[in-house]
């Protein structure tokens, strides 16, 4: 069986499993929260309601997508090792990188589907509140997905490297937070260049994902180039997935 075919089979299985276990719960939570928020915000910000609802909804879509993808990346392989379902896959003619890629891409496909469904719910509420459609909305959701994508790839590596779900989650969330301040971190490094104390931070700056570059949501009114964020996200994720595959290939069960 070719590596790509095996990866596609594993990816489809991952989508199937994710859809049945988490997908609808996530979308229902989102729908409920946004509907409730629309009622509250309608009272608090009568003149700015669509704008506030737009920002609130986009942030929530990103956070729920992040929660699902990062938790999924941290647990998907370790849980399979724990339940031993992985034995039934790796004892078949499936290469370990193909298995890992399939699990990751399946998880990302399920996350993308959940974010699309949440966006549709969000748009329905926005339209009901008189919001005027702009294609920038799609760019904003796409940018959020790219952020989720890079952090999920990093989390998968962390989970395999540490063999600990909690450690992977904590480090991923720290790097997620730092990723929104990478420009400031680089400024500090330039400011303190030559100081030995900056060396670890300098090294860390190569690991931290540049989430500001992917934060299209904050630039809805201005230019929204998507090619550079897409290229960056693909390259960043590819590096961490390659490292994860190298680590996983040496693993014994």
């Amino acid at each position, binding site marked *: 069986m070719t590596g790509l075919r095996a990866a596609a089979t594993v990816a489809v299985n991952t989508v199937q499993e994710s859809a049945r276990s988490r997908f609808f719960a996530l979308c229902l939570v989102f729908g409920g929260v946004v509907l409730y928020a629309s009622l509250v915000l309608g009272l608090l910000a009568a003149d700015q309601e669509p704008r506030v609802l737009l920002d609130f909804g986009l942030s929530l879509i990103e956070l729920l997508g992040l929660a699902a993808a990062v938790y999924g990346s941290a647990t998907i392989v370790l849980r399979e090792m724990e339940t*031993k379902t992985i*034995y039934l896959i790796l004892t*078949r003619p499936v290469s370990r990188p193909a298995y890992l890629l399939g699990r990751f891409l399946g998880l990302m496909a399920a996350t993308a589907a959940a974010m699309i469904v949440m966006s549709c719910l969000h748009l329905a509420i926005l339209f009901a509140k008189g919001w005027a459609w702009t294609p920038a909305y799609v760019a904003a959701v796409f940018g959020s997905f790219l952020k989720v994508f890079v952090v999920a790839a990093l989390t998968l590596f962390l989970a395999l490297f540490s063999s600990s779900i909690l450690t992977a989650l904590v480090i991923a969330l720290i790097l997620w937070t730092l990723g929104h301040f990478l420009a400031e971190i680089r400024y500090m490094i330039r400011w303190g260049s030559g100081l030995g104390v900056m060396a670890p931070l300098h090294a860390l700056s190569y690991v931290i994902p540049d989430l500001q570059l992917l934060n299209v949501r904050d630039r809805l009114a201005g230019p929204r180039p998507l090619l550079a964020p897409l290229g960056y996200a693909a390259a960043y994720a590819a590096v961490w997935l390659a490292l994860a595959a190298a680590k996983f290939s040496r693993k014994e069960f």
Partner: protein
Amino acid sequence: MGEAVEALVLSGVGKTYAYSHLGRTTYTRGVENLSLAVRAGEAFGLLGLNGSGKTTTFKLALGLLRPTAGTVRVLGRSPRDPQAQAATGYLPELPYFYPFLTPREALRFYGRLSGLGGAALERRIDESLAVVKLSDKADRKIGQLSKGLVQRVGLAQAILHDPQLLILDEPVSGLDPLAIKEIRDTLAALNARGKTIVVSSHSIFDIEKLCHRVAILRDGRLVAQLARADWANAEGGLEQLFVDAVTGAEARP
């Protein structure tokens, strides 16, 4: 894949587990200097107390572990060779499956990973379900099935791709007497059709009925190899020979 005279060969195999904690590494022996040869078409039993090295031996034969000494050949190839993997079926002890899938969906997934597809896959799924007497439960969620039925799903996935070699780790563990007899009869029928079976079990009665030869392990070492004639002519049968071997009363390497 051509028919190898010996389905599984372990030559001077050793496996030592290394555990590192706080900079200190401890070593545990899994198996030591283990040499075995299972002939094609044979039903071969692996007996031993808990921790004697049975599961380690299986994992080495499946490529889930790498030996620290010696060599392992499956159907004349490395255990991680895709052709060897395609010709091997494996049932782990207490198999676990994705609870949201049905047996038919799970088998479809494993069948695709084994390189099957289309009408041939659907036919093999129906045949495998029929062999393990699970056809009427094929479309219920696995999470709703009893332990015995899940064990049958495990056996169905092991025979799905019509492998030459079946490696079965405690296939009747935790089952009721009727289910044990049905699975034993199924294995005997598969062996009669030419499948090589390597099986471990704590049920000496089942091993005695099914196997042509057995190997007995104690503390990771081979302490006896017996043929059916040995236990057929021995007072107390295989059970007494096993007790003698694991207590060191009459070790026959």
